[in-house]
C-alpha cells in the first residue's frame, strides 16, 4: 500500500471534472477515502451513473463538449459554488490542459495532477522530446510542430512512412500515418481539424513511423518533495485507429532487467520535468529491446487498472494524497509485482464497419461478475449513449497468477458481458484474445490491421437462429418505430403466442 485509507481524508470535497467510467472510478475512490464528491454533467448526461453516485451534481450546459466538459469557467464556478477543495480531471477533456490547471490554481483549488507549467512543458511534445533527449533518453526522429510547408519538407527528409500527431493532447486524436507524399496535405488538414475540435489547438508534429514496434509505457508516482517511484510497464500495443483496445501488465517481452532500465529512463524524464503526481511515460520498443521516448501523459491513464491489479497500489488514492501534499510512502525496492492483468476496453462501435461509432440506447445491460475480474463501467440500462463523446463504455480487467489464467478469466468475462442496443466491440475483443499470436504475446501496434483487417463475427449457431426465428415471429415491433411500408408481413402472424 502506498497510502492507507485509515489516514485522514486528503480533502473534504473534490469536484470530478469528467463523465463516464472514469468519473465513476474517481468518485468511488473519493468515497473510499471519506472525501465528498461533486459530479458535473452536460444536458446529455443528466441521469448518468456518475451523476447519481456523487454527493452533489452540477449541470454545466449543453451536450457539446465546448459548452460543458471543456468549459473551464463553468467548471471553476461549479467548484467554488459547491465548496470543493480540489478538482480531479480524469482523463481526456481538460486533463492535460495547462490553462485548466492554472485556472484551478488561480481560484485556490487544488488540481489533482502536476503543476500547470509541468503539464505545459510535457504537453508540448516538441519540448518533451528535447527534455527527454537532454536527460539522456533516446527519442524517435521527427520534426516539431510547424506550418504545412515545413512539415511536408520535414516528412520528405525523414522519409515515408511518417506519422502526424497532435503537439498538444494524446489519445490518438489527430494521429495519421502517411505512406507517401501524395496524401500528406489532406491527412495534415484532417488531423488539424480533428485536433482543434478535441483540444482547441491545431499544432501538429511529424515523426518517422516505426514499423511493427510495441507500445510500452511506464507508470510513475512522484510527490512534491522529490520522491518518485515507477510501478513498472504496461503493454499497450493492441490498438485500432491508434487507440488502445487491449492492455496488459507486465509486458510479455519485458525482462526484469529491461523493466529496471525502462523505469529508470521514465524517472529521469520525470525528474528533469519536475514531475509531481501520477504520470505515464510512453516508449516505443523495437524487436531488439531498444526503446525510444514517445511522450508523457500527465494524468491518470485509461488503462491504469492493470498496474493497480499487479502492484496493489490504488493510483487514484495515491493521486489524491499526493495532491494534498502527503509524502510518498513507497520506496522503489518496496514495489512488488504479482501475477498478470489484462484490460479490454468496451466501445460503442461497429468493428464490421471500420469501428464506426455506434451511439444509441442501451436496451439491456448485464455486466459480468466473476473471480479475478474488475469492471470499471460508466453506463446503465436505459441510458442513451450520446454522439458527442468518446465511445468508451466500460473496461473489463482480469487478473490471474499468470498470463494464461488472466486471459482465460477475461475471455469468460467478455462471454458473460451482455449489452443490447448499440453495437459494441465485445465479440471482436474475444476473437482478439483468442488469436494464437496474441496468446504467444506476439503483438505490435500493427496487429489489428495485420490479423483482423477483414474481421467478421462468426455466423450464429443454428439453435440460436431457430430461437431468433421464434422471437421474431412472436413479437411485433412497436408500431411507432415501424416505418411506413407496403404489405405488413406481421398481419399473417395471428395466433402465434408463447406458452
Amino acid at each position, binding site marked *: 500500500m502506498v497510502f492507507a485509507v485509515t489516514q485522514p481524508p486528503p480533502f473534504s470535497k473534490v469536484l470530478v471534472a469528467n463523465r463516464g467510467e472514469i468519473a465513476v472510478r474517481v468518485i468511488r475512490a473519493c468515497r473510499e477515502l471519506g472525501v465528498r464528491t461533486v459530479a458535473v454533467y452536460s444536458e446529455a448526461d443528466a441521469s448518468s451513473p456518475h451523476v447519481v453516485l456523487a454527493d452533489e451534481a452540477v449541470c454545466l450546459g449543453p451536450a457539446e463538449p465546448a459548452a460543458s466538459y471543456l468549459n473551464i469557467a463553468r467548471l471553476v464556478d461549479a467548484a467554488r459554488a459547491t465548496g470543493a477543495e480540489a478538482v480531479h480531471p480524469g482523463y481526456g477533456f481538460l486533463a492535460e490542459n495547462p490553462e485548466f490547471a492554472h485556472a484551478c490554481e488561480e481560484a485556490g483549488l487544488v488540481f489533482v495532477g502536476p503543476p500547470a507549467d509541468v503539464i505545459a512543458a510535457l504537453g508540448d511534445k516538441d519540448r518533451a522530446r528535447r527534455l527527454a533527449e537532454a536527460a539522456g533518453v533516446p527519442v524517435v526522429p521527427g520534426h516539431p510542430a510547424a506550418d504545412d510547408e515545413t512539415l511536408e519538407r520535414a516528412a520528405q527528409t525523414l522519409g515515408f512512412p511518417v506519422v502526424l500527431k497532435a503537439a498538444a493532447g494524446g489519445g490518438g486524436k489527430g494521429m495519421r500515418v502517411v505512406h507517401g507524399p501524395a496524401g500528406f496535405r489532406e491527412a495534415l488538414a484532417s488531423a488539424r481539424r480533428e485536433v482543434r475540435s478535441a483540444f482547441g489547438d491545431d499544432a501538429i508534429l511529424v515523426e518517422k513511423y516505426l514499423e511493427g514496434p510495441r507500445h510500452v509505457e511506464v507508470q510513475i508516482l512522484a510527490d512534491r518533495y522529490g520522491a518518485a517511484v515507477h510501478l513498472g510497464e504496461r503493454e499497450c500495443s493492441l490498438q485500432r485507429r491508434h487507440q488502445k483496445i487491449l492492455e496488459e501488465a507486465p509486458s510479455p517481452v519485458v525482462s526484469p532487467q529491461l523493466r529496471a532500465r525502462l523505469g529508470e529512463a521514465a524517472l529521469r524524464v520525470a525528474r528533469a520535468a519536475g514531475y509531481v503526481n501520477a504520470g505515464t511515460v510512453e516508449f516505443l520498443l523495437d524487436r531488439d529491446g531498444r526503446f525510444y521516448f514517445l511522450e508523457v501523459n500527465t494524468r491518470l491513464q485509461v488503462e491504469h487498472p492493470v498496474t493497480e491489479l499487479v502492484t496493489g497500489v490504488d493510483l487514484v488514492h495515491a493521486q489524491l494524497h499526493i495532491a494534498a501534499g502527503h509524502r510518498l510512502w513507497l520506496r522503489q525496492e518496496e514495489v512488488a509485482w504479482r501475477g498478470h492483468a489484462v484490460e479490454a476496453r468496451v466501445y460503442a462501435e461497429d468493428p464490421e464497419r471500420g469501428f464506426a461509432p455506434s451511439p444509441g440506447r442501451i436496451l439491456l445491460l*448485464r455486466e459480468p461478475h466473476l473471480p479475478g475480474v474488475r469492471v470499471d463501467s460508466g453506463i446503465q440500462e436505459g441510458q442513451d449513449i450520446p454522439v458527442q463523446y468518446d465511445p468508451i463504455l466500460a473496461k473489463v480487467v482480469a487478473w490471474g497468477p499468470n498470463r494464461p489464467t488472466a486471459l482465460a478469466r477475461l475471455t469468460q468475462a467478455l462471454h458473460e458481458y451482455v449489452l443490447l442496443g448499440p453495437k459494441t466491440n465485445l465479440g471482436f475483443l474475444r476473437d482478439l484474445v483468442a488469436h494464437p499470436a496474441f496468446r504467444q504475446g506476439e503483438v505490435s501496434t500493427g496487429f489489428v490491421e495485420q490479423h483482423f483487417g477483414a474481421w467478421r463475427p462468426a455466423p450464429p449457431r443454428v439453435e440460436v437462429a431457430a430461437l431468433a426465428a421464434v422471437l421474431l415471429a412472436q413479437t411485433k*415491433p412497436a408500431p411507432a418505430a415501424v416505418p411506413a411500408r407496403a404489405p405488413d408481413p406481421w398481419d399473417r402472424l395471428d395466433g402465434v403466442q408463447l406458452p
Partner: protein
Amino acid sequence: MTPVRVAVACGGWKATAEVRASDRGFVVRIGGRDLPVEVREVRPGVGVAQVGGLTLQFFSARQAEVLHLHALGHTYAFSQAGESVAPREAEGGDVRAPMSGVVTRVLVEPGQRVQAGQGLYVLEAMKMETVVHAPRSARVRRVLARAGDQVEGGASVVELEEEP
C-alpha cells in the same frame, strides 16, 4: 395454427425458418432440420430456451425491425431478411451518413461537379472525424444538411445526379 415463414438475417448471414406451434412450444424447420424450441421468459427480455437438446440462457430486446439477441456468449442483431437495417451507403443518388453524428463541414455546393473519391462532407461522431467521399464522378444535385446539423445514420446528406 398455420406455419409461419420467417426469413432470418444477421450481418451477411441469412436463413429461412418455418415456425410451427407444438404442444410443448414450437418446432422450427431451419437448415433442413426440425428443431423443437421451448422458451421460458423470466422477465421481459431475459429467459431460458431449450432448442433441440441445447439449453441456453438468452437476453433479447426489440428495437423497430431489429431483434437484439445475446446467447451462448455472442450478441446478434437479427432482422427479417429483406428489411433494410444497416444504412446503405451511396444507394441511388444519395450519399448517406455512414453513422449518426454531427456534420462539421460541407465541402461541396449544389451544381458542383465532383470526382469519384472526392470529399463531400465531414461527419464527426464520438470524437472521430470521417470524410464521406463521392462514390463516383457526378454532379451535386442537393445538399440536405448544414455544418452543425446532427444527422442519423443512413440519413441522406448529399444527393448526386449523373452529369448531363
